[in-house]
Structures are given as structure tokens and as C-alpha cells.
């Protein structure tokens, strides 16, 4: 727990420095000519405050003030969280290439069948019903096109039919 707290505080400090570096592209001081702070002032000084506070947390953790003990992650369920996160990232990465109508049912299939250990019937119904719902709700009704990637040609007749 303590270790995790320190790592997070240190990462916030690093992030603040990165923000501050970016913010210096625009003037960060009080701009006398126009009046008021320059374009980089807000992000720069806010990040500076963030840096100091995260530094404070880091220092505090070394001062021996006990906050909480116990492991940061629950070792039993950590693997679940990690696998869901990975599946999510893989699904998102697949979308531009294989299209939302392949990637999302695949994700559902993995989540329901492999991860959730549900039966074939439920998995099958959801994997088919979800893309159908998405198509009719988002594309036909709301006119928001989802990425199709390689599957684009298969949708041309559908467009011709429904638009």
C-alpha cells in the first residue's frame, strides 16, 4: 500500500513536469501588454501546485505516518482485473482494423463465455443482438457511423437498404 502510494505520487510528479514543460510553449507569466496571465500560465502553475502536493505526499510517506497497511492489490482478483483491461485494450485496437462489428462481438464473446462462463445460448444471443442493436440504434436512427475497417464492403448493401 505504502509502496503503491509512493509510486503514484512520483508518477503524478513526473506528469506535472511533463505538463509544465508543454505549457512553457506559451507565455506563462503575467502578460503586461494585454493584461492578465499568458496562455501557458494556467496549465503551468496548476501543474506546479500538483507537483508540490504530490511531493508532499511522497515526503509524508517517508515520515512514517501510517496510513493504511495491507497489499494494494487483492492478489486473488488482480488477475481478473488485468485480463479484463487487456481484453478491453485489444478490442479497442481491433476496432479501426476489423471494424466495430467484429471487435465488439469478439469482446462480448470473450467476456461472457471465457471470463463469465455463461452458456452458449446467452452468449450467442448477446453476441448477435448487440451488433444488430448498435447498427439500428446508432447508424440507422442516430446517423452515427461506427468504424467498419475491413468489413466496410459488406455494409454497402445495408446502407442502400436503410438510408
Amino acid at each position, binding site marked *: 500500500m505504502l509502496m*503503491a*502510494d509512493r509510486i*503514484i505520487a512520483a508518477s*503524478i510528479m513526473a506528469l506535472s513536469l511533463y*505538463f509544465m514543460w*508543454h*505549457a512553457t*510553449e*506559451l507565455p506563462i507569466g*503575467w502578460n*503586461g501588454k494585454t*493584461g*492578465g*496571465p*499568458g*496562455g*501557458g500560465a*494556467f*496549465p503551468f502553475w*496548476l*501543474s506546479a*501546485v*500538483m507537483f508540490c*502536493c*504530490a511531493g508532499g*505526499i511522497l515526503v509524508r510517506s517517508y515520515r512514517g505516518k501510517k496510513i493504511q497497511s495491507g497489499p*494494494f*492489490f*487483492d492478489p*486473488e*482478483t*488482480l488477475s*481478473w*482485473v488485468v485480463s*479484463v483491461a487487456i481484453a*478491453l*485494450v485489444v*478490442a*479497442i485496437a481491433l*476496432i*479501426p482494423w476489423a471494424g*466495430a462489428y467484429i471487435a*465488439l462481438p469478439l*469482446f*462480448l464473446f470473450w*467476456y*461472457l463465455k471465457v471470463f*463469465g462462463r*455463461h452458456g452458449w445460448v*446467452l452468449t450467442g444471443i*448477446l453476441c448477435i443482438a*448487440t451488433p444488430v442493436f*448498435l447498427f439500428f440504434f*446508432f447508424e440507422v436512427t*442516430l*446517423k*452515427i*457511423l*461506427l*468504424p467498419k475497417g475491413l468489413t466496410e464492403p459488406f455494409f454497402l448493401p445495408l446502407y442502400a437498404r436503410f438510408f
Partner: protein
Amino acid sequence: MELFAHLADGFATSLSPLNLFIVILGVTAGLFIGAMPGLGSVNGVAIVLPMTFIVPPSSAIILLCAIYYGAMYGGAISSILLGIPGASTAVATTFDGRPMAQQGKAGLALIVAATASFVGGTISVILFTLFAAPLADVALAFGPAEEFALVLLAFTTFVGLGGDDVLKTIIMICLGLALSTVGLDLISGQPRLIFFDQPGFYSGISFLVLAIGIYGVGEILYTIETSKSAPSVTPARLTFRDLWYGIKEVNKLWRTLSFGSFLGFFVGMLPAAGATPAALMSYGLSKLMSKKPETFGKGAIEGVASPETANNAASTGSLLPMLTLGIPGSPTTALLLGGMVMWGLVPGPMLFIEQPDFVWGLISSLYTANLAAVLVNLALIPLFVWALRMPFTVLCAIVLVLCIVGGFAPSQKMHDVWLIAGFGIVGYLMRKADYPMAPLVLALVLGPLMEKSFRQTLIAEQGNIVAFVERPLSGTFIAISVVFFLLPLLKYVKRSPRAQKVPNEPAE
């Protein structure tokens, strides 16, 4: 009496069978669009707008109002059931709505939200009917300095929202504000904080992306980890008795409701502010005035009722500057404004005089749409509650898919979907380390408004910082915000010897 004659004319059109059918259709569609995380009234109105050229103009207005109201009601549904605010206006609703759902009171929370929205909508439509024209001048008196003071006020009403750890709360506020500066510096017109030269950052980081990431993906990861000890949502049942009980409960809250409606209407009416600060202020203030502030964030009924009244009242209020000044207070009203221009109407001070048929038709459809929205919403609550009884893994899978699609839909960029995944994973880790999430989200919502109005004022006043206090309206707001800032501190000091460990953390 002229007013009532106009109104009666308006009702005569809005109550025809065709229009009643349109209202119910629009409200239902709006409700489902609003209940989708990521989609809100903007999407609903944008889709319907081109269709309005096919139906007669009076029906077109009614359809738009119905969608608008339906989506406003719907925003509360995803806030309560999934804990994901569907729109920035519904952030405050998650604070108590989500805990209520987790305690198995999702049905009650939904009933409270619907009735509170109805009260808010009704009171503000009445205010709108009576005072639309004179109030336009109030909106005109609002310059950048006043905008800044108002945002500051919204912020300070929320001072007590952080967790116990002051340093972590400050970090989250600063992070939210810093993230809100990504994109374009309005004043100099220069791009800033374009990380890794990704063009997606040019338009900044939208509230929805952060909210779906943190409250959607992050929340699910968190529940997966803790699910073996406790299920996230207790299945809720709903009977007619519950419905009656809910309405009776709301009845007890008349003070919160009427206060929220007035506040919502006036804040919503101010061109810059809109419904989000209104809902936040209403939540913060009702917590401040409540006899049991410690229940807030843990499933207090008032905590659902107060922001819901205010945001509905504010969305009605925000129609006012749009109609009388031609200034849209929100993206949705901007689209409505566009629609009016297409119908050949010129919004502005003359609209009420030159186009009374349109204006009163609109006002009467607001009444009809509001009533239809509450009825349809109440009727559908059992369906929504039933949805919660799905097995946990099924619900999670569907919500994750909705997060991806809902994150993509508003601006149609994969960039946003990646950000959602990133915010979700980082948010999950930070939440485990006791970083409060509500200040981050709020800061991102209010940040751009705050920086912009602050700098505009200073430019206009040649860098004279006293200007904020000198102007009567903004001076008053700043004085009130100082009071709000000190009040919790005073309470804290008074209580501290005995009850130092009263956590007032919001729902997360």
C-alpha cells in the same frame, strides 16, 4: 390576460392527437438516447433537426422539446443505474444516485429523480411564462467578470466534496483544471498541450470522455476486484406501493425542490453557465442547508432530488437567452437556435413581439413535453430496474461495450476511445489509492469557463484585478463564495474536538 390567451392558443395546437403522439414518441426516444452513456440531448436534437422540415413547424417544435426533455430525464437513468453520468448535467446525480442503487433502492432513486425533474421543469416553465421578457435584461448584465464570479461560486459550494486527504483533493482539482486547458488557448488562439502531436487533442479533453473512463471503465474494474466480497448492486424490486412511497418521499422535500428549481432557473438563464453549474450548486447548497449533511454521498434522497430539479429547471432556463438574445447557453440550445434560423425566425429581443405564435407554441409544448416525460419515465422505471437484475458479468460486458461505443459516438474519434480506456485504468489505480474522483471531474467541467472569463475580464480591464470586486453583481457573488468557503471550515472547527473523523466523501 393577453398572456393566458396566447398560452391557450398554444395549448390548442400542442394538444391535438397528432402532436400528442409526437410528444410521446419524442419523449420516449429522448429518454433512451439520454440513458445511453455518452449520448445526450445534443445527439437527439441534432438528429431530429433536419426531419423537422418535413412535419409542420408547430409539430417540429413540439418534437424538439419532447426530445430535449426526454434526454434530460434520461441522463439521470444512467447516472443512477450505472454510475456513469450520461451528460455533464447529471454528474451530481451520481453522487447519491449510485449509492442508492447499490443499496437496492434504484427504483426509489429513479422515481425521485423523475418527480424532482418534473417539479423543476414545471416551476421553471411557469417562471419562463411569466417573466421571460424582463429577465432577458438580467442575462445581458452578465459580462465576463460576473461569469467568473458565478463559476467561482459553483466551485466553492463544492468545497466539502473532497475526501479526507486535503493534498490528494488539491491534486485532483489541479489535474482537472490542467486537463481542461488542453487544446486551444482561446485568448491567443494558439494550440497548447498537444501531447505527442496527436491531432485529437486539438479539441481538448471532453468531459464525457473523462466521465465514461472513470465512472464507466474504472468503476467496472474496481467492482470486478471487489465483487467477490460484495455484489455491486443489490437487485431491486418495484411495486406500485414503492411508486407511491417514492412520490410521498418527494413530497416531503418540497423545500429542497422549490429552492433547486429557482436556483436552477436563474443559473440556467445566464448565458454562460447552463445546467451543470446549476446542478452542482444545488447539490452543494442543499448539503449545506441539510440537517443531516453526513448522509450526502451515501444515498440521501435529497442528494438525488436537488441536482435533478436544478438541472431540469436550468435546461428550461437556458432556452431564455437563446430565444430573447440569440445566445445559446449549451450545445443543445445552439442546435435549437440553428433550427430556428432555418425556419426563418430571428431569435432576439423582437421574437416575442414578431412571432408570438412560435414563442407561445414553444412554451405550451414545454408544459406538455414535461408532463409526458415524467409519465413515460415513471412507466419505464420497472424496465430499467429489471435491467439491473442481469447477472453481474453480463451487465459489465454490456456496459463496457456501451462505454466504447458511447465514447466514440459524440465526436466520432478513436482517439477518445483510447482516452477512455486510459482514464479508466489510471482512474481505477488512483481510486484505490484514495484519490477522490469527483473534484477531478468537476474541475474539468468548470475549468474552461473559469479561465476564459478570468482572462477576458483582465484583458478588458487592462489587468486591473480589483475589477472583480468592484462590479456590483460579481462583487456580490464573490462575497457569497467567500462565505461558502468559510462556512464548512467554521463547522469543521466547531466540530473538530469531538468529531474530527466525520468523512464527507461523495459517492464514488
